[in-house]
């Protein structure tokens, strides 16, 4: 019996605030799209909120794609995000399953190690990481960056998945054991399929974080061939001081935003549950 707000004035104010915030979120996306279709003339002599003039400059997109090599960066981002998410998820799920189901000497300490690592600022590890990767010849490689990203998402994955595995009924494993499935069979054939919702949630949150990651990418990748999308955007915006190509810059932003927006629209529910998984307990 939730009656909501009855005072019409207060209701109006609340709606107004919500709508203003909604505009502040959606409008930048719309204006990024519109500005991606403008030439420099329009940036300098028209108001920033003016609609793009005809003919719309769709060329900005193809220009960024081929001249700025976004075809390459896009592929780099896709490969790195896919590899590191998969690797990070598998490694986290294995450890999380054992921590949730088996008691052994040091199991608590191990869990605490992963959890407490989330308190340590990542920026602290940045400098040694750079030299470590250099000496292992892993800088400027997609697999090197993928390994670092996979490692950076382990703690969160273990945290969420331990909770998830603990929530699954034990009878299923016992049944599997009776059926003669070994330890590995039980995990891969029974537990992994059962924990799909948890795995998807963790995977999606990792995809968001890795796709958007900027600072580690900037430090570990100097070879323009190997840039990811955020790294290149950072460089492009720094170069804007010397060459003003606003339209292409906004087109570049679109290439970064749109894929992740699609992922978000499809997986909204999982993202929301992943965020609240740990905190509301």
């Amino acid at each position: 019996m939730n009656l909501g707000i009855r005072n019409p004035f207060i209701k109006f104010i609340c709606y107004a605030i919500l709508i203003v915030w909604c505009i502040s979120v959606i409008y930048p996306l719309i204006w990024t799209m519109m500005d991606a279709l403008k030439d420099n003339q329009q940036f300098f002599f028209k108001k920033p909120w003016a609609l793009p003039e005809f003919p719309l400059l769709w060329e900005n997109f193809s220009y960024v794609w081929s001249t700025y090599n976004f075809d390459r960066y896009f592929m780099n981002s896709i490969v790195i995000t896919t590899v590191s998410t998969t690797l990070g998820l598998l490694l986290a799920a294995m450890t999380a399953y054992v921590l949730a189901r088996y008691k052994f000497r040091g199991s608590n300490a191990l869990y605490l190690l992963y959890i407490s690592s989330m308190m340590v600022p990542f920026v602290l590890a940045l400098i040694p990481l750079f030299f470590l990767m250099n000496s292992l010849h892993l800088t400027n490689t997609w697999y090197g960056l993928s390994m670092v990203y996979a490692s950076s998402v382990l703690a969160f994955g273990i945290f969420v998945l331990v909770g998830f595995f603990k929530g699954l009924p034990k009878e299923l494993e016992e049944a599997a054991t009776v059926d003669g499935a070994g330890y590995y069979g039980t995990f891969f054939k029974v537990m992994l399929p059962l924990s799909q919702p948890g795995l998807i949630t963790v995977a999606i949150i990792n995809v968001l974080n890795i796709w958007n990651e900027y600072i580690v990418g900037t430090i570990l990748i100097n070879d323009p061939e190997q840039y990811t999308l955020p790294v290149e955007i950072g460089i492009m915006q720094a170069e804007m001081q010397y060459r003003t190509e606003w339209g292409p810059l906004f087109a570049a932003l679109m290439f970064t935003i749109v894929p992740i927006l699609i992922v978000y629209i499809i997986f909204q529910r999982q993202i929301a549950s992943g965020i609240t998984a740990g905190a509301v307990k």
Partner: protein
Amino acid sequence: MNSGTAKLQRTIFIASFIVPTLLFFGVFTIYPTLQALYYSFFDWSGMSQHKEFIGLDNFVNLFKDPIIWRAIGNDYFLVLGKIIGIMILATFFAVALTRFNFKLASFFRSTFFIPNIISVVVIGVLWNFIYNPQIGFLNSFLSLFTKEQVTITWLGFQHHTIWMLLPPAIWAGIGFYMLLLIAAIQNIPESYYEAASLEGSSQWHQFWTITLPLIWEQMKVSILNIMMTTLNGSFVIVWIMTEGGPDNTTQVMGSYLYQMAFRQYHFGFASAIGVLILVLSLVTTVILQRLMRQETVELG
């Protein structure tokens, strides 16, 4: 004998699931973190193999450096500003979207989270464009009300430029905490509100007597999380928007670390900044927890 094999099998299984992850984590996360503590005692330009052990000199120099004090001040300014801004708005949104029976509530909820899925680089570029002195949104908007074209360099004030970085940081952060608080409010049994309504208690009164005490735990988590992510990560948006300038006035600890390490090659000194960030975030966590140690109402 048989039980011995079974035990061995179990051990092998556990090890095979624990060790690869731990190795990975050890090499790429734990080892670099410990190494940073070690580097902070050395004078090292990074290029040469030669590191000179200088004990605590990096820390002594750090505290003599006026820029680090400004950076610490800026960091805590952002922490405070973000806690106030985000908590007020996120709590309002969470309550409005769960308790007020608004149409479109789920649409608002999905929309408000969008800034959280956008890369911080993209957010930096967008806000740079808003603040751009010649062609930016803000000046063009203000020019509507003035005779002459407004040309304020929003990111170039001699003082207080750090204020300009607060709106993007709040804008980008709200969605996450809103979702957290929404989940907390949805956990509260509807019967609590029903009983209050029967007694004629207003929405406002219900917020103070039911909602707030029952989501206080999640609010504490949110405040701690805002503090930690700000001290650890807010430098990225600072770096993209101002690079700590003009004249180091918007420097935060993280951006100063980045500049000292990867622009000026003082890797030992920069590592000391990293250690300082770690220490400050732990100390602040403890202090905040003390301050917020109020009786938490447990749901029965």
